[in-house]
């Protein structure tokens, strides 16, 4: 005499299908968020209001001698030759087993490829001669609320 419970296979199939749909939606949402962030970063490193000659005439405003950043937000960067802009790369990838309980995680990234722009690190960290303009994390800070909302909406 006993009780037989059936339907476990069906529940497992449902959960698996749900998990698959969740990853698909999350990947789509992350892709949308990363695209927005990459666009915002590109805007913040795309100033064209001062040429190199202008900056020289202004006394090199990012340098030690005249640390008077002429822009707001302060981490904005001028686009001169386009090298830094062209180095910005973004994408979404699934990292298998890297999450809690060995689950896959979805990672979105926006960054500067240093093989394409060797001075990107200097712009971010600054130096003894140049103020730091961390255009990546500062942009993320400013955009964070909008990005979180976008992610939720897309999900």
């Amino acid at each position, binding site marked *: 005499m006993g009780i037989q419970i059936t339907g476990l296979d069906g529940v497992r199939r449902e959960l698996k299908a749900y998990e698959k749909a969740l990853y698909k939606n999350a990947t789509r949402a992350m892709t949308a968020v990363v695209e927005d962030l990459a666009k915002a970063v590109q805007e913040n490193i795309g100033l064209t209001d001062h040429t190199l000659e202008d900056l020289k005439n202004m006394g090199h405003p990012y340098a030690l001698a005249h640390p008077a950043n002429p822009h707001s937000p302060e981490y904005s960067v001028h686009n001169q030759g386009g090298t830094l802009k062209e180095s910005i790369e973004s994408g979404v990838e699934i990292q298998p087993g890297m999450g809690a309980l060995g689950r896959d995680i979805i990672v979105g990234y926006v960054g500067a490829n240093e093989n394409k722009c060797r001075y990107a690190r200097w712009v971010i960290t600054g130096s003894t001669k140049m103020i730091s303009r*961390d255009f990546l994390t500062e942009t993320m800070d400013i955009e964070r609320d909008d990005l979180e909302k976008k992610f939720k909406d897309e999900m």
Partner: protein
Amino acid sequence: MELLNLIQEQLLKSADITSVIANRLYIGEMATLKGVQFPCINIELNPGALIEKLPGYAEHYFRMWVWGKTRDSSDGVYGAVMSEYHNMTITADDLSVRANINEVSRPIYNYDPTVESYFLMARWRAFLITI
């Protein structure tokens, strides 16, 4: 007391830190400072990153640069900062402010040939409570 003054005051209480940098913990971006001696630490608030939560309570982001003659030297000092202050609450000696501070971005390393020093820059967050 301002947040950066609070951090300066409290970090300089660590023997592991001061044994290397003495009292050379500067407030401001390195490129704006004069008469700096190395090894040292400098700290600066992130521009525009103050988030007012409630009256007397605010969230700040700040950056910390640790400079040393070798990468191991700057790493060692930063290791002391991490072990003693990451996720810790610090309180001003005059009890006027209190802050919980924590690292939010792992360090980025660089080398400045002008001063022949290695340095790292890390990003921290502070939840500041004015008492």
